[in-house]
């Protein structure tokens, strides 16, 4: 799956399992206010332009393991009701997790933040695992 230009999923609702594993987004990717009722898998997805998940809701597992964010990544205001796995993800530009709520386990093991990462006002209700490295 390759999106060569903008991909907009704003306010989309995914009731079942959703897989964007390995997908490539060459343009802006927008998931503003999207709702994922089942698993949402973005493992090894490549976001080569800005990626926006502000106010998105993940009711189950959100998997961004090994994902690559080459431009800004915005998760501000998102709610993760299941586990959120960002293990091994790479953020080459700013990453915004402001006022994000992690109701489940938030895993950031091996994450690379090469620029600033903001978690202002973020809430971790169940715990957070991180051995993140920064560039």
């Amino acid at each position, binding site marked *: 799956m390759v999106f060569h230009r*903008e991909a907009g999923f704003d306010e*989309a609702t995914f009731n*079942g399992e959703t*897989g964007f594993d390995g997908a490539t987004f060459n343009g*802006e990717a927008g998931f503003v206010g999207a709702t994922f009722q089942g698993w949402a898998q973005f493992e090894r997805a490549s976001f080569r332009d*800005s990626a*926006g998940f502000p106010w998105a809701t993940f009711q189950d597992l959100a998997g961004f393991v090994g994902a690559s964010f080459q431009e800004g990544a915005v998760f501000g*205001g998102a709610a993760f009701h299941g586990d959120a796995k960002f293990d091994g993800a790479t953020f080459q530009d700013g990453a*915004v997790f402001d006022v994000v709520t992690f109701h489940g386990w938030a895993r950031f093991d091996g994450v690379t933040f090469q620029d600033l990462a903001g978690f202002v006002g973020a809430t971790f209700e169940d715990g957070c695992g991180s051995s993140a490295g920064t560039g």
Partner: protein
Amino acid sequence: MADTAVLGWEVCAEVDSDGLRCGGVRLAAGDRCLAHAAEQDVVVELKRLSDGGVLDARGVPITSRLLDRLLDAVPRNDNNRPVLNAARFDGATFQGEAAFTSATFRGKARFDGATFQDWAGFNRATFLSEVGFDGATFHGKAGFGGASFRSGAAFHWGDLPRRGQVWRGDLPALGRVLRSDLPPRGRVQQGGLPPRGRVR
């Protein structure tokens, strides 16, 4: 060269000027696909679709005009938007804009390996069953704003054979989260977030 054994469906007998055979699936009548069939065969197919039949356009090169004809043929909902049962667009190529805006897919919808050469519009579309875009390629903007995926949705990477093609347009609510929405470097702050519900 399209090959029935490789693609898994009976391919169209159309051969272009370069000697390449069309990869579109044959209609029940004749030996051509929707794009190359005789008009009377297309009319029969459209009638079948209007009766709620499965739309099978695997591997078919689909122009905007052809897609319009297909969507005009299928039943409509109360909002006068197309309602498709199972739809097979595996490996299809949408050569112009592909406007599925507000369409409803009642059965499984497969776009695996499809190529969208122009705008792909699925804004406010409803997928009641599984939908697959594995290995699809979107060369134009892709709009799924407000879409509803009631069952599984697959957008995985894939390497399915590519044939066929779709459209462009002024997508609403696309790419609302832009680089410019990001807080300035070094000043990540709550106020920098786009407000909830800005996308409508």
